[in-house]
């Protein structure tokens, strides 16, 4: 079965295609509340099925200095 590449910052992961994004994130131990997932620049939802050979890019959403400007 072909795999799916998942990229978060400088980390690359591989998971099996055919599973949902939600399941893939759970398998990788990535909290879905802390990332957004994009396919070719478009946002996708947690229930999206991952397709063979594709790359999903995750955008980390947490930031946190002491005093925001």
């Amino acid at each position: 079965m072909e795999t799916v590449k998942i990229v978060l910052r400088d980390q690359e992961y591989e998971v099996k295609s055919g599973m949902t994004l939600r399941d893939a994130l759970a398998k990788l131990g990535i909290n879905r509340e802390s990332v957004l997932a994009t396919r070719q620049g478009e946002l996708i939802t947690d229930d999206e099925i991952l397709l063979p050979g594709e790359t999903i890019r995750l955008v980390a959403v947490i930031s946190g200095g002491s005093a925001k400007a």
Partner: protein
Amino acid sequence: MRQHKLALCAMHFPQWMVEQTQRFIEKYRMFTPDDRVLVAVSGGKDSLSLWDILWQLGYNVDGVYIALGIDGGFGYSQKSQALCEKFADQRGLKLMVIDAPQQIGVTIPELAKVTQRGKNKPCSVCGLTKRHLLDRVALERKYDVLATGHNLDDEAAVLFGNTLNWHIGYLHRQSPVLPARHAGLVRKVKPLCRFYEREMAAYALVRGIEYIYEECPHAEGSTTIYYKSLLNQLEADRPGAKLSFYLSFLQAKQRGLFAQPQEGEEGVGAGGERLYTCPSCGGPTTVEGLCAFCRMVEKVK
């Protein structure tokens, strides 16, 4: 958005965010179309999105960027400033740049080293400097209100930390609106305080807002990020937990949980302490003499 049991498409989501922001501005009586609003921008997703939303709503809004001189090996401050300038240029908006090292004489990391404030991290010095310079620029240029891009995750993390330590004074102070309690302070508002950080990132992506993706090099290992991660673990299991935590707190405050006898009086701090006037800058201070910022800058001279 599991906390709202709502899913929106790329066309309606930003529209919903703009409408909700207007609703929060009115609900918490933040400002009106007659007010001059100054948005503090950092080049990050939250503050640039806030500026974008207020601009779309037609408010009389300018931006201010505080250049801090933080490099981190990749020109963090320079890159952030360039993104703010590009954002303003694309929309024909006015951006003011305040050069902190020029005002103080040294960069923020250098200032932290000299003053030894903040346990080997410049975050405390940075926060103090930004607050001081933002108040000063807003007052000098006669803005009615200063808007910041704090989102719900920021507010929930602060609330979590203050609750763990029972910092009653800080709990009392935390609010979507901070009134000007002294002539040296400007009224501050947080129009994004009910949006999740994830929603803000989604808004920036959908709207095509270019923001600095890299974290401030000094934020690594920060307590705020740790608290946010803990709260996100809770949120993953119980959708809406963060929102409920924050909103329940605001409701409890409204019912008088943290009420203090001198609440809302000018010249009295949020924790009920008396505020004096700094003889050097005119800003507020809880002790007689120079304020914390001026004392810190004195050490550089």
